[in-house]
């Protein structure tokens, strides 16, 4: 499992670059992760990221787009606008969580 320097801190990541330790993340690191993938994080980004962080521990898996929409209340269109291209993976990355496993 590689360790990489992000924002001057050593961070454990998997081979793809997703963070592997829930507790290594804080919002300062989140902002840095966003910057690394070209995202300027707004309040709406943060609302989504905080939902993902809150949802993860009890379920042990990252919310899918569907769950972020039905449970978190974020319209799917907005998620595509906030995290363009591959929203589910980008949201998970910036929130310091694994890629979602669910199919929908």
């Amino acid at each position: 499992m590689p360790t990489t320097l992000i924002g001057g801190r050593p961070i454990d990541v998997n081979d793809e670059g997703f963070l592997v330790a829930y507790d290594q993340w804080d919002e300062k690191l989140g902002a840095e992760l966003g910057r690394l993938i070209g995202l300027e994080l707004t309040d709406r980004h943060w609302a989504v990221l905080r939902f993902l962080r809150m949802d993860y521990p009890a379920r042990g898996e990252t919310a899918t787009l569907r769950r972020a929409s039905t449970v978190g209340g974020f319209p799917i269109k907005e998620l595509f606008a906030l995290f363009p291209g591959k929203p589910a993976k980008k949201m998970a990355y910036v929130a310091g969580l694994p890629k979602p496993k669910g199919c929908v």
Partner: protein
Amino acid sequence: MTITEPTVGAPIVPDFGGEDCPLPAEAEASETPAGRKLVIICSKGNLDMAYPGLILANAALGEGIETHLFFTFWGFDIITKSRMEDLKFTMLGNTAMHLTQAPKLPIPALAGAIPGMTKMATSMMRKQIADLEIPTVPELLEQIVEMGGHLWACRMSFDMMQLNEADLFEGVDAVISATDFMDLSEGAQIIFV
């Protein structure tokens, strides 16, 4: 776990495809969208045959892939308003039918022909799907449209079934001919369900 020294230099960042992943809206606006394109042909109207195409379409859109679904023949039930909520699963002709509660219990092929069996098998399958928090067919179609996916209806099936456009799910882009389909699918990867 082996402990490795932090990588010096550029951090390890997942590959999100960069410029190849335009917003669905941008991909729509562009004449020649960059990146991958997928066309899924949905030709069956059974409940268990509706899901594979819809689930794959949903996954593709989430990955920034331009996605089109083409509904033809029995697949029309998936986008016909009066039928889409009532797709059925039948055991008839299906040799892969097992009960999760008793996987080894043999199920005679003829059992599927007993009146009420299709209704029962359908409601069991619906429950299994709902337990996995998978949306219903109309909900999944709505989500696909919301994500920028395109739904196309086959002209020949439309005429054969004597339907009106008002009979179709609102998210359907248009009724198109086989020739239109050739234009649509140019350069695309095709999945036939």
